């Protein structure tokens, strides 16, 4: 169909006008995403890895913003400028492809995707797993002293063991602020997933597997603990609140737990990275 039905404007003008609109929109929106929206992105700044995730989310969103604008502005531009006149039923001109545009699109998106993959890999290892479980032998381990805490998942509750404090086990997770934590996550029955959202920590809890995650809480706070793996009828009830407290408050709390749970500590199995899912007697 002829081009008479469309605005009588050379194609080059459309390209220039569209590019200008997109560039301006991107130059305005991208800094807004970085500096206004970025700091508000999840999961917040409850720990070093959580802050790192905020940065990563900001980078991803900032890189996605021009791409999103490209698509949205193109659609809007086409809807407005190439709108079919009222009462007419005309076909647009045949689109036969444009090698230059196609090549540019493939090259640019490939660069974007590959650079994001490289960024993600570097960030994952720079951040010692970035709050995720890195398996029993993490590739990178933070230097300095670490508080070792074990998360034991079972249907349907998490309990926590502190091997540095006589292997005492507790029903709630309490940690000192500004102390690197080496979390060992395991399960004694089905597959679970330990997720402390505000701390940016999420690690699968599998029976017979020691899944290690590192993080350092940076503020005193109350955080949520969820199970993030559908694990049975009470999966939704595997929810608790943990606390990040000052070092003296933690010392006091752990001492109280050692006294309170002394009878249970006596009969606990020696601290190990994993435990047999078999109960002390088989199900009858």
């Amino acid at each position, binding site marked *: 169909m002829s081009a008479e039905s469309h605005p009588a404007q050379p194609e080059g003008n459309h390209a220039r006008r569209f590019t200008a609109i997109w560039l301006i929109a991107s130059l305005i929106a991208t800094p807004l995403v970085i500096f206004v929206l970025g700091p508000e992105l999840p999961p917040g700044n409850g720990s070093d890895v959580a802050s790192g995730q905020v940065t990563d989310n900001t980078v991803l969103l900032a890189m996605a913003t021009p791409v999103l604008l490209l698509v949205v502005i193109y659609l809007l531009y086409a809807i407005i400028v190439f709108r079919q006149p009222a009462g007419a039923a005309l076909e647009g001109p045949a689109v036969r492809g444009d090698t230059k545009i196609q090549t540019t699109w493939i090259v640019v998106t490939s660069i974007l995707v590959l650079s994001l993959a490289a960024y993600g890999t570097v960030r994952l290892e720079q951040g010692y797993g970035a709050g995720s479980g890195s398996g029993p032998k993490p590739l990178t381990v933070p230097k300095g002293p670490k508080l070792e805490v074990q998360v*034991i998942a*079972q*249907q*349907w*509750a998490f*309990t926590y063991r502190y091997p540095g404090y006589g292997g005492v*086990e507790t*029903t709630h997770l309490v940690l000192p602020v500004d102390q690197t934590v080496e979390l060992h996550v395991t399960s*004694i*029955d*089905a597959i679970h997933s330990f997720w402390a959202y505000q701390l940016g920590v999420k690690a699968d809890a599998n029976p017979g597997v020691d899944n290690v995650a590192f993080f350092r809480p940076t503020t005193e706070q109350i955080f949520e603990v969820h199970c993030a793996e559908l694990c*049975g*009828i*009470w999966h939704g*009830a595997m929810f608790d609140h943990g606390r990040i407290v000052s070092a003296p408050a933690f010392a006091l709390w752990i001492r109280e737990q050692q006294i309170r*749970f002394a*009878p*249970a500590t006596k*009969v*606990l*199995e020696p601290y190990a990275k994993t*435990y047999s*899912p*078999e*109960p*002390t*007697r*088989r*199900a*009858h």
Partner: protein
Amino acid sequence: MSQSGKRILGVGAAVVLTCALIGLYVSSWATSMPPTVAATPVLGAGGGTQLTLETVPSIGPNYSPTHPSWVSYLIRQNGKWIHSTIFKVRANSIVHVTLYQYDSASGLRNPFLSQVQGTVGGTATIDGKTVNSIPPEEASHTFVIPEMGVFVPLPGIPEGAKTPCEFAPCEGADHRTVSFSFRTGKKGRYRWQCFVPCAAGTIAGFGGPMQTLGYMDGFIDVV
């Protein structure tokens, strides 16, 4: 109406009817709940309410024709054992629990739960003896309200018991008597459960009655 039109209408009606029946079945299954049984008020100085419960190795055909072999809890009200695990108690009050345990030991998967926690005095009375824990391998079931911090392990009857219970109600059979008290807080619905993998023949001992409301888990409605 043409022949093919009638055929399409017939097929359409059959599909709608089938979907409706499936929907009714699923919704009735998903919303079916055991009855809520109120704890018995305790008269006297201490006040509070009394829950009298029992745990049985098999619920039996009288209470559960579909799953007679499933392990279960029951509650006694007005002298009758009722198959329910939804109990109603008062807010900010003391709840006295007497539990008749008729099942044999399975053992705890996590020995940590062998300690009594969250009860008045941090203890329970088992066959007249006050304890703060039991050997983990002797646990048959637990009565645990995680959100209230109440953890009570229930020991099994001895191996080779002379008169083990076959089906509920088990009165007269060998049993352990466990009693304890706990205090309720604010109003709300709190779930409780058994933590012993006692569902014989199911995956990890945690299928069947462990995953079905009315057997080894339920709610405490604090009102």
